[in-house]
Protein backbone atom coordinates (compact mmCIF):
# COMPACT_ATOMS: atom_id res chain seq x y z
CA UNK A 1 0.00 0.00 0.00
CA UNK A 2 1.27 3.39 -0.92
CA UNK A 3 -0.41 6.75 -0.58
CA UNK A 4 -0.66 8.77 -3.76
CA UNK A 5 -1.15 12.52 -3.81
CA UNK A 6 -0.71 15.45 -6.14
CA UNK A 7 -0.46 18.17 -3.58
CA UNK A 8 0.97 18.67 -0.15
CA UNK A 9 -0.89 21.18 2.00
CA UNK A 10 0.20 22.61 5.32
CA UNK A 11 -2.47 24.48 7.29
CA UNK A 12 -1.88 26.46 10.48
CA UNK A 13 0.73 23.90 11.48
CA UNK A 14 2.38 24.31 14.91
CA UNK A 15 4.79 22.28 16.97
CA UNK A 16 5.95 23.35 20.43
CA UNK A 17 8.65 21.78 22.55
CA UNK A 18 7.78 22.96 26.04
CA UNK A 19 8.15 26.71 25.85
CA UNK A 20 9.97 26.73 22.56
CA UNK A 21 7.80 27.19 19.53
CA UNK A 22 9.74 25.38 16.86
CA UNK A 23 7.05 25.93 14.23
CA UNK A 24 4.07 28.20 14.65
CA UNK A 25 0.92 28.42 12.52
CA UNK A 26 2.49 27.85 9.15
CA UNK A 27 0.46 27.54 5.97
CA UNK A 28 1.73 26.78 2.47
CA UNK A 29 1.31 24.36 -0.44
CA UNK A 30 3.62 22.30 -2.56
CA UNK A 31 2.22 21.09 -5.88
CA UNK A 32 3.44 18.05 -7.78
CA UNK A 33 6.07 18.97 -10.34
CA UNK A 34 7.37 21.98 -8.47
CA UNK A 35 10.34 22.84 -6.28
CA UNK A 36 9.54 24.88 -3.20
CA UNK A 37 12.24 26.38 -1.03
CA UNK A 38 12.02 26.66 2.74
CA UNK A 39 14.27 29.62 3.46
CA UNK A 40 15.37 31.24 6.68
CA UNK A 41 18.25 31.60 9.13
CA UNK A 42 19.34 28.88 11.57
CA UNK A 43 16.65 28.12 14.14
CA UNK A 44 13.86 29.28 11.84
CA UNK A 45 12.15 25.88 12.17
CA UNK A 46 13.17 24.41 8.82
CA UNK A 47 14.35 21.07 10.22
CA UNK A 48 11.28 20.71 12.47
CA UNK A 49 9.13 21.40 9.41
CA UNK A 50 10.88 18.61 7.50
CA UNK A 51 10.47 16.28 10.50
CA UNK A 52 6.76 17.08 10.69
CA UNK A 53 6.23 16.46 6.98
CA UNK A 54 8.25 13.24 7.19
CA UNK A 55 5.87 11.96 9.96
CA UNK A 56 8.77 11.74 12.43
CA UNK A 57 7.36 14.52 14.60
CA UNK A 58 3.74 14.92 15.64
CA UNK A 59 2.08 18.33 15.21
CA UNK A 60 0.87 20.19 18.31
CA UNK A 61 -1.93 21.75 16.29
CA UNK A 62 -2.87 22.39 12.69
CA UNK A 63 -2.81 19.81 9.95
CA UNK A 64 -0.92 18.42 6.99
CA UNK A 65 -2.76 17.22 3.88
CA UNK A 66 -1.13 14.61 1.72
CA UNK A 67 -3.73 14.67 -1.03
CA UNK A 68 -6.77 13.30 0.77
CA UNK A 69 -4.86 11.88 3.75
CA UNK A 70 -4.81 14.21 6.73
CA UNK A 71 -2.34 14.15 9.62
CA UNK A 72 -3.09 16.36 12.62
CA UNK A 73 -2.52 16.41 16.37
CA UNK A 74 -5.36 13.97 16.99
CA UNK A 75 -4.60 11.66 14.08
CA UNK A 76 -0.90 10.98 14.21
CA UNK A 77 0.52 9.32 11.14
CA UNK A 78 0.16 5.98 12.94
CA UNK A 79 -2.74 4.50 11.00
CA UNK A 80 -1.61 5.26 7.48
CA UNK A 81 1.98 5.96 8.51
CA UNK A 82 3.56 3.20 6.44
CA UNK A 83 1.55 4.06 3.33
CA UNK A 84 2.56 7.69 3.67
CA UNK A 85 6.21 6.95 4.30
CA UNK A 86 6.26 4.81 1.15
CA UNK A 87 5.51 7.96 -0.85
CA UNK A 88 7.98 10.28 0.90
CA UNK A 89 11.74 10.50 0.40
CA UNK A 90 13.90 12.37 2.90
CA UNK A 91 17.46 13.60 2.56
CA UNK A 92 18.35 14.61 6.08
CA UNK A 93 20.96 16.88 7.50
CA UNK A 94 22.91 13.73 8.29
CA UNK A 95 23.66 11.14 5.69
CA UNK A 96 21.36 8.27 6.74
CA UNK A 97 24.01 5.84 5.47
CA UNK A 98 26.09 3.16 7.17
CA UNK A 99 29.78 4.04 6.67
CA UNK A 100 30.87 0.40 7.08
CA UNK A 101 28.68 -0.79 4.20
CA UNK A 102 29.43 -0.25 0.54
CA UNK A 103 27.37 2.17 -1.52
CA UNK A 104 25.64 -0.76 -3.23
CA UNK A 105 24.86 -2.49 0.07
CA UNK A 106 23.45 0.70 1.59
CA UNK A 107 21.19 1.32 -1.38
CA UNK A 108 20.11 -2.31 -1.66
CA UNK A 109 19.26 -2.39 2.05
CA UNK A 110 17.13 0.74 1.93
CA UNK A 111 15.51 -0.29 -1.36
CA UNK A 112 14.48 -3.56 0.27
CA UNK A 113 13.22 -1.79 3.37
CA UNK A 114 11.14 0.52 1.18
CA UNK A 115 9.57 -2.43 -0.58
CA UNK A 116 11.16 -1.81 -3.99
CA UNK A 117 10.50 -4.81 -6.24
CA UNK A 118 14.08 -5.56 -7.28
CA UNK A 119 16.29 -3.92 -4.66
CA UNK A 120 19.60 -4.92 -6.18
CA UNK A 121 18.70 -3.73 -9.67
CA UNK A 122 17.25 -0.50 -8.29
CA UNK A 123 20.44 0.11 -6.32
CA UNK A 124 22.60 -0.43 -9.42
CA UNK A 125 20.47 2.01 -11.40
CA UNK A 126 20.67 4.54 -8.59
CA UNK A 127 24.46 4.29 -8.57
CA UNK A 128 24.49 4.91 -12.30
CA UNK A 129 22.39 8.01 -11.69
CA UNK A 130 24.92 9.16 -9.13
CA UNK A 131 27.77 8.39 -11.50
CA UNK A 132 29.35 6.14 -8.91
CA UNK A 133 28.99 2.70 -10.52
CA UNK A 134 32.76 2.31 -10.50
CA UNK A 135 32.89 2.58 -6.71
CA UNK A 136 29.78 0.53 -5.96
CA UNK A 137 31.66 -1.90 -3.75
CA UNK A 138 33.67 0.61 -1.72
CA UNK A 139 32.49 1.42 1.80
CA UNK A 140 30.69 4.73 2.02
CA UNK A 141 33.03 5.74 4.84
CA UNK A 142 35.88 6.04 2.30
CA UNK A 143 33.95 8.46 0.07
CA UNK A 144 34.43 12.21 -0.20
CA UNK A 145 31.73 14.49 1.13
CA UNK A 146 30.33 15.13 -2.35
CA UNK A 147 30.20 11.45 -3.25
CA UNK A 148 28.49 10.58 0.03
CA UNK A 149 25.92 13.24 -0.55
CA UNK A 150 25.21 11.79 -3.99
CA UNK A 151 24.66 8.34 -2.52
CA UNK A 152 22.50 9.86 0.23
CA UNK A 153 20.33 11.58 -2.37
CA UNK A 154 19.90 8.36 -4.34
CA UNK A 155 18.98 6.62 -1.07
CA UNK A 156 16.22 9.16 -0.52
CA UNK A 157 14.93 8.66 -4.07
CA UNK A 158 15.32 4.90 -4.36
CA UNK A 159 11.59 4.17 -3.98
CA UNK A 160 10.57 6.94 -6.45
CA UNK A 161 8.72 9.03 -3.85
CA UNK A 162 5.92 11.46 -4.71
CA UNK A 163 7.24 13.98 -2.22
CA UNK A 164 10.92 14.67 -1.65
CA UNK A 165 12.10 16.56 1.44
CA UNK A 166 15.67 17.85 1.50
CA UNK A 167 17.31 19.40 4.55
CA UNK A 168 20.28 21.61 3.61
CA UNK A 169 21.38 19.44 0.67
CA UNK A 170 24.05 21.87 -0.59
CA UNK A 171 26.12 22.06 2.60
CA UNK A 172 29.76 21.25 1.94
CA UNK A 173 29.36 20.56 -1.77
CA UNK A 174 31.74 21.94 -4.42
CA UNK A 175 30.44 23.62 -7.56
CA UNK A 176 30.46 20.48 -9.67
CA UNK A 177 28.51 18.47 -7.07
CA UNK A 178 26.07 21.32 -6.57
CA UNK A 179 25.43 21.55 -10.31
CA UNK A 180 24.82 17.82 -10.45
CA UNK A 181 22.36 18.01 -7.56
CA UNK A 182 20.53 20.94 -9.15
CA UNK A 183 20.05 19.09 -12.40
CA UNK A 184 18.87 16.00 -10.54
CA UNK A 185 16.25 18.12 -8.76
CA UNK A 186 15.15 19.64 -12.04
CA UNK A 187 14.76 16.13 -13.41
CA UNK A 188 12.51 15.28 -10.46
CA UNK A 189 10.38 18.32 -11.16
CA UNK A 190 9.91 17.27 -14.76
CA UNK A 191 8.92 13.79 -13.60
CA UNK A 192 6.09 15.36 -11.56
CA UNK A 193 7.55 15.01 -8.08
CA UNK A 194 6.85 17.55 -5.35
CA UNK A 195 10.14 18.81 -3.93
CA UNK A 196 10.56 20.77 -0.72
CA UNK A 197 14.03 22.10 -0.10
CA UNK A 198 15.21 23.66 3.17
CA UNK A 199 18.32 25.71 2.64
CA UNK A 200 20.09 28.93 3.46
CA UNK A 201 22.20 28.79 0.34
CA UNK A 202 20.37 31.49 -1.61
CA UNK A 203 22.75 31.67 -4.58
CA UNK A 204 22.07 28.07 -5.52
CA UNK A 205 18.37 28.31 -4.81
CA UNK A 206 18.04 31.39 -7.03
CA UNK A 207 16.42 30.41 -10.31
CA UNK A 208 15.74 26.85 -9.15
CA UNK A 209 12.67 27.48 -7.02
CA UNK A 210 9.08 27.69 -8.19
CA UNK A 211 8.08 29.19 -4.88
CA UNK A 212 9.87 30.29 -1.73
CA UNK A 213 8.54 30.05 1.81
CA UNK A 214 10.37 32.41 4.15
CA UNK A 215 10.54 31.39 7.81
CA UNK A 216 11.90 33.19 10.84
CA UNK A 217 11.70 32.16 14.51
CA UNK A 218 9.30 29.38 13.60
CA UNK A 219 6.89 31.73 11.87
CA UNK A 220 5.93 32.34 8.28
CA UNK A 221 7.25 35.67 7.02
CA UNK A 222 6.02 35.46 3.46
CA UNK A 223 5.46 33.17 0.51
CA UNK A 224 6.76 34.30 -2.87
CA UNK A 225 5.78 32.60 -6.13
CA UNK A 226 8.36 32.47 -8.92
CA UNK A 227 10.92 34.37 -6.82
CA UNK A 228 13.67 36.34 -8.48
CA UNK A 229 16.61 38.12 -6.90
CA UNK A 230 16.29 35.86 -3.85
CA UNK A 231 19.05 37.48 -1.86
CA UNK A 232 17.50 40.93 -2.01
CA UNK A 233 14.03 39.56 -1.22
CA UNK A 234 15.46 37.56 1.68
CA UNK A 235 17.28 40.55 3.16
CA UNK A 236 14.20 42.71 2.83
CA UNK A 237 11.85 40.12 4.36
CA UNK A 238 14.09 39.14 7.25
CA UNK A 239 14.59 42.77 8.27
CA UNK A 240 10.85 43.15 8.57
CA UNK A 241 9.54 42.47 12.10
CA UNK A 242 7.38 39.36 12.25
CA UNK A 243 3.75 40.15 12.94
Amino acid at each position, binding site marked *: MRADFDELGVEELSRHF*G*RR*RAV*SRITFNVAAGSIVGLLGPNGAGKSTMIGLLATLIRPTSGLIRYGRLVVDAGH*AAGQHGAALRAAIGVLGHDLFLYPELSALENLTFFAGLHGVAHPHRAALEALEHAGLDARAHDPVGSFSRGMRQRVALERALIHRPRLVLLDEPFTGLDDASTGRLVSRLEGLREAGTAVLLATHDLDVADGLLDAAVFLKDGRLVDTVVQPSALRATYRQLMARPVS
Partner: protein
Amino acid sequence: MPKWFLPAAALCGVMFVASPVVIAGAPYESTMGLVQKIFYFHMPAAVMFLVSAVICGVASARFLFRGDPAQDRLGWAAAELTVLFGIIALVTGPLWARKAWGVWWQWDVRLTSSLMGWMVAVAYLLVRKYGGPGSEKLAAGLALFGMANVPFVYISVNYWRTIHPTTSVVPTLPTSMGGPLWFCFATFLLLLVLLLRLRVRLGEAHARLDALHLALDE
Protein backbone atom coordinates in the same frame (compact mmCIF):
# COMPACT_ATOMS: atom_id res chain seq x y z
CA MET B 1 -7.27 25.33 44.59
CA PRO B 2 -10.53 23.45 45.25
CA LYS B 3 -12.60 24.48 48.26
CA TRP B 4 -12.03 21.26 50.15
CA PHE B 5 -8.27 21.53 50.03
CA LEU B 6 -7.50 23.81 52.97
CA PRO B 7 -9.91 22.18 55.43
CA ALA B 8 -8.66 18.78 54.37
CA ALA B 9 -5.05 19.88 54.80
CA ALA B 10 -5.86 21.23 58.27
CA LEU B 11 -7.61 17.98 59.15
CA CYS B 12 -4.64 15.98 57.95
CA GLY B 13 -2.30 18.09 60.08
CA VAL B 14 -4.46 17.62 63.17
CA MET B 15 -4.63 13.89 62.53
CA PHE B 16 -0.84 13.65 62.28
CA VAL B 17 -0.43 15.60 65.50
CA ALA B 18 -3.00 13.39 67.20
CA SER B 19 -1.56 10.14 65.86
CA PRO B 20 1.14 9.68 68.56
CA VAL B 21 -1.55 9.97 71.21
CA VAL B 22 -3.79 7.50 69.42
CA ILE B 23 -0.91 5.09 68.88
CA ALA B 24 0.18 5.40 72.52
CA GLY B 25 -3.35 4.44 73.51
CA ALA B 26 -3.23 1.23 71.49
CA PRO B 27 -2.72 -2.04 73.39
CA TYR B 28 0.93 -2.76 74.29
CA GLU B 29 2.30 -5.72 72.36
CA SER B 30 4.23 -7.90 74.83
CA THR B 31 6.83 -9.71 72.66
CA MET B 32 7.81 -6.73 70.52
CA GLY B 33 7.44 -4.05 73.10
CA LEU B 34 7.55 -0.42 72.13
CA VAL B 35 9.01 -1.09 68.67
CA GLN B 36 5.73 -2.62 67.58
CA LYS B 37 4.33 0.92 67.48
CA ILE B 38 6.33 1.56 64.28
CA PHE B 39 3.85 -0.69 62.59
CA TYR B 40 1.17 2.00 62.78
CA PHE B 41 3.17 4.21 60.44
CA HIS B 42 4.94 1.50 58.50
CA MET B 43 1.95 -0.32 57.11
CA PRO B 44 -0.05 2.71 55.95
CA ALA B 45 3.06 4.13 54.31
CA ALA B 46 3.70 0.82 52.55
CA VAL B 47 0.13 0.66 51.28
CA MET B 48 0.28 4.27 50.02
CA PHE B 49 3.56 3.39 48.32
CA LEU B 50 1.74 0.66 46.42
CA VAL B 51 -1.26 2.85 45.64
CA SER B 52 0.85 5.66 44.19
CA ALA B 53 2.89 3.14 42.19
CA VAL B 54 -0.29 1.76 40.62
CA ILE B 55 -1.54 5.28 39.85
CA CYS B 56 1.78 6.08 38.21
CA GLY B 57 1.70 2.92 36.08
CA VAL B 58 -1.88 3.33 34.91
CA ALA B 59 -1.51 7.06 34.19
CA SER B 60 1.70 6.38 32.23
CA ALA B 61 0.04 3.70 30.10
CA ARG B 62 -2.84 6.03 29.31
CA PHE B 63 -0.45 8.86 28.46
CA LEU B 64 1.55 6.62 26.15
CA PHE B 65 -1.43 5.49 24.11
CA ARG B 66 -3.67 8.54 24.26
CA GLY B 67 -1.08 11.30 24.55
CA ASP B 68 -3.09 13.19 27.16
CA PRO B 69 -0.69 15.52 29.02
CA ALA B 70 -2.93 15.50 32.12
CA GLN B 71 -2.17 11.79 32.52
CA ASP B 72 1.51 12.56 32.23
CA ARG B 73 1.29 15.12 35.05
CA LEU B 74 -0.59 12.62 37.20
CA GLY B 75 2.02 9.95 36.50
CA TRP B 76 4.87 12.26 37.46
CA ALA B 77 3.14 13.33 40.67
CA ALA B 78 2.43 9.72 41.59
CA ALA B 79 6.05 8.73 40.90
CA GLU B 80 7.30 11.35 43.34
CA LEU B 81 4.87 10.10 45.99
CA THR B 82 5.95 6.53 45.30
CA VAL B 83 9.50 7.54 46.15
CA LEU B 84 8.37 9.47 49.24
CA PHE B 85 6.13 6.78 50.75
CA GLY B 86 8.68 4.17 49.67
CA ILE B 87 11.34 5.90 51.75
CA ILE B 88 9.06 5.95 54.80
CA ALA B 89 8.22 2.27 54.37
CA LEU B 90 11.82 1.27 53.67
CA VAL B 91 13.17 3.16 56.68
CA THR B 92 10.55 2.03 59.17
CA GLY B 93 10.70 -1.55 57.87
CA PRO B 94 14.28 -2.27 59.00
CA LEU B 95 13.62 -0.60 62.35
CA TRP B 96 10.91 -3.16 62.89
CA ALA B 97 13.01 -5.96 61.46
CA ARG B 98 15.87 -5.24 63.86
CA LYS B 99 13.59 -6.09 66.74
CA ALA B 100 11.47 -8.79 65.10
CA TRP B 101 14.15 -10.72 63.22
CA GLY B 102 17.30 -9.45 64.91
CA VAL B 103 18.70 -8.08 61.65
CA TRP B 104 18.41 -4.73 59.93
CA TRP B 105 17.75 -6.15 56.53
CA GLN B 106 16.10 -9.37 55.57
CA TRP B 107 15.84 -10.58 51.99
CA ASP B 108 12.19 -11.11 52.59
CA VAL B 109 10.05 -11.19 49.48
CA ARG B 110 8.00 -8.15 50.39
CA LEU B 111 11.01 -6.10 51.39
CA THR B 112 12.99 -7.01 48.30
CA SER B 113 10.11 -6.43 45.89
CA SER B 114 9.38 -3.09 47.52
CA LEU B 115 13.00 -2.07 47.15
CA MET B 116 12.96 -3.00 43.45
CA GLY B 117 9.72 -1.10 42.89
CA TRP B 118 11.17 1.90 44.68
CA MET B 119 14.25 1.72 42.45
CA VAL B 120 12.04 1.87 39.36
CA ALA B 121 10.30 4.98 40.75
CA VAL B 122 13.67 6.62 41.44
CA ALA B 123 14.79 5.71 37.90
CA TYR B 124 11.58 7.34 36.63
CA LEU B 125 12.47 10.61 38.39
CA LEU B 126 16.08 10.42 37.16
CA VAL B 127 14.84 10.05 33.59
CA ARG B 128 12.50 13.00 33.96
CA LYS B 129 15.25 15.15 35.38
CA TYR B 130 18.14 14.19 33.14
CA GLY B 131 16.49 12.65 30.09
CA GLY B 132 16.20 15.93 28.18
CA PRO B 133 13.48 16.58 25.59
CA GLY B 134 11.11 13.69 25.05
CA SER B 135 11.84 12.23 28.49
CA GLU B 136 8.14 12.12 29.37
CA LYS B 137 7.65 9.32 26.84
CA LEU B 138 10.68 7.49 28.13
CA ALA B 139 9.54 7.75 31.73
CA ALA B 140 6.05 6.57 30.81
CA GLY B 141 7.54 3.54 29.06
CA LEU B 142 9.61 2.77 32.14
CA ALA B 143 6.59 3.04 34.44
CA LEU B 144 4.58 0.71 32.20
CA PHE B 145 7.39 -1.84 32.15
CA GLY B 146 7.88 -1.46 35.89
CA MET B 147 4.23 -2.23 36.49
CA ALA B 148 4.30 -5.30 34.25
CA ASN B 149 7.40 -6.41 36.10
CA VAL B 150 5.85 -6.52 39.59
CA PRO B 151 4.55 -10.13 39.48
CA PHE B 152 7.86 -11.33 38.03
CA VAL B 153 9.87 -9.66 40.76
CA TYR B 154 7.56 -11.01 43.45
CA ILE B 155 7.60 -14.59 42.19
CA SER B 156 11.31 -14.67 41.45
CA VAL B 157 12.31 -13.19 44.80
CA ASN B 158 9.95 -15.56 46.58
CA TYR B 159 11.45 -18.65 44.96
CA TRP B 160 14.96 -17.27 45.21
CA ARG B 161 14.49 -17.14 48.96
CA THR B 162 12.98 -20.58 49.35
CA ILE B 163 16.10 -22.12 47.90
CA HIS B 164 18.14 -20.24 50.44
CA PRO B 165 16.38 -21.13 53.64
CA THR B 166 17.33 -18.64 56.30
CA THR B 167 16.99 -18.87 60.03
CA SER B 168 14.44 -16.11 60.06
CA VAL B 169 11.11 -16.52 61.70
CA VAL B 170 8.30 -15.29 59.52
CA PRO B 171 6.72 -12.56 61.60
CA THR B 172 3.23 -13.13 62.78
CA LEU B 173 1.34 -9.94 62.16
CA PRO B 174 -0.63 -8.74 65.13
CA THR B 175 -4.19 -9.83 64.59
CA SER B 176 -5.80 -7.03 66.55
CA MET B 177 -4.99 -4.09 64.34
CA GLY B 178 -7.81 -2.17 65.87
CA GLY B 179 -8.75 1.45 65.68
CA PRO B 180 -5.31 3.10 65.84
CA LEU B 181 -4.17 1.36 62.66
CA TRP B 182 -7.26 2.45 60.76
CA PHE B 183 -6.75 5.96 62.09
CA CYS B 184 -3.18 6.08 60.76
CA PHE B 185 -4.35 4.52 57.56
CA ALA B 186 -6.89 7.30 57.03
CA THR B 187 -4.26 9.92 57.89
CA PHE B 188 -1.83 8.59 55.29
CA LEU B 189 -4.52 8.23 52.66
CA LEU B 190 -5.54 11.83 53.20
CA LEU B 191 -1.89 12.88 52.93
CA LEU B 192 -1.56 10.99 49.66
CA VAL B 193 -4.63 12.63 48.16
CA LEU B 194 -3.52 16.09 49.29
CA LEU B 195 0.04 15.76 48.02
CA LEU B 196 -1.12 14.28 44.74
CA ARG B 197 -3.55 17.13 44.21
CA LEU B 198 -0.90 19.68 45.09
CA ARG B 199 1.70 18.15 42.81
CA VAL B 200 -0.70 17.82 39.88
CA ARG B 201 -1.67 21.45 40.42
CA LEU B 202 1.97 22.44 40.23
CA GLY B 203 2.23 20.54 36.95
CA GLU B 204 -0.87 22.27 35.65
CA ALA B 205 0.55 25.65 36.63
CA HIS B 206 3.76 24.81 34.77
CA ALA B 207 1.80 23.84 31.68
CA ARG B 208 -0.24 27.05 31.88
CA LEU B 209 2.93 29.08 32.26
CA ASP B 210 4.38 27.40 29.19
CA ALA B 211 1.19 28.15 27.27
CA LEU B 212 1.33 31.79 28.38
CA HIS B 213 4.95 32.08 27.30
CA LEU B 214 3.94 30.76 23.91
CA ALA B 215 0.99 33.12 23.70
CA LEU B 216 3.22 36.04 24.61
CA ASP B 217 5.28 35.46 21.46
CA GLU B 218 2.17 35.43 19.34
